[in-house]
């Protein structure tokens, strides 16, 4: 008998949207927003301009059984908003630790979308993580506020390479103890 492990990824309800696993039909909106320099420059890994096929590859990876990172779309369709407001990711590390990442399309900035998504994901704690880590670029204090709003503690300064900027950028590192 062969045992197959299936990586389950729950749908998580927030107030104004649901966090649901990324799917093929998200490619268009996701590419539109990920292709925005303001989004890409806030991340380490999103290139700018966005090469063709990047989003399709992201969706394929997000659906692979052996993935280590789960990706949720922030889907506001049921509340009269767009199907992809942004994405939130949770990468499984060892020792019951996970790393969270997120971006929100610029049109929805400063409306609490990211805080709501991060708060919902923490409450659901789908990886059963004891600690969740995150980092933000120091020139993106709005993103840092999302973390502190959600109870994350500042750990230290570091730096990380941003592909979109083609440069190493100062970062702040944060962690949250879930008690999970």
């Amino acid at each position, binding site marked *: 008998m062969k045992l197959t492990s299936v990586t389950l990824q729950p749908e998580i309800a927030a107030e104004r949207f649901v966090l649901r696993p990324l799917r093929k039909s998200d490619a268009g909106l996701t590419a539109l927003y990920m292709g925005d320099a303001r989004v890409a420059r806030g991340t380490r890994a999103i290139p700018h301009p966005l090469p063709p096929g990047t989003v399709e590859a992201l969706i394929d990876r997000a659906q692979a059984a052996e993935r280590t990172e789960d990706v949720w779309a922030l889907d506001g369709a049921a509340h009269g908003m767009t199907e992809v407001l942004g994405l939130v990711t949770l990468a499984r*590390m*060892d*020792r*019951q*630790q996970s*790393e969270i990442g997120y971006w929100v399309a610029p049109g929805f900035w400063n409306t609490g979308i990211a805080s709501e998504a991060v708060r919902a994901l923490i409450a659901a704690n789908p990886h059963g993580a*004891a*600690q969740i*880590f*995150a*980092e933000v670029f120091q020139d993106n204090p709005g993103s840092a506020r999302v973390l502190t709003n959600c109870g994350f503690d500042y*750990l*230290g300064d*570091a*730096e*990380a*390479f941003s592909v979109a900027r083609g440069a190493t950028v100062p*970062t702040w*590192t944060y*962690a949250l103890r879930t008690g999970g």
Partner: protein
Amino acid sequence: MRPKDEAGGGLRISYRALGPQDLGALSDIVGHWEVVRQLGSFPWPADPVFNATRAQAYQGDGFVWAILRDGGMVGTVAVTGDELGYMLHPGQWRQGIGRRAVGAALAEAFGRLGRGRIVADVWADNAASLGVLAGFGFVRVRDEVVMSKARGVPTASCRLELTRTAWEAHGIP
């Protein structure tokens, strides 16, 4: 855990549980390629979040200690499960600090923790660590080629083993 002080060798070396306060010093150590290329789990280039996940109190079976020299963190030594691992800032190499730390960790593992056997995986080109471990009676039990996370290429690795019996017979070098 109270720091354990050791006298001798003119070096003031002590150990305590690794914690979030060590993030800066740990990041400095694993910012050195000559260190990271000899490690198993750390990525290259260094990843600030990965470093933060390691600068935490170890919750598993075993221990991860900070190695302190004159109170300053200069490395780590760990027994996780039955596996020994350690790292040292390059500025602290060739002074016998690694040997002292490994000795202290083995004493803890075979003593208080009651381990029957300790293993260590060492890249085949890490002559310094192979020498340190041989000095404690570790024997080479397997050679293999495995992917090195930091180097990004398949790399020759040696599995070393020290049984409690051999440890007791061998004594401290």
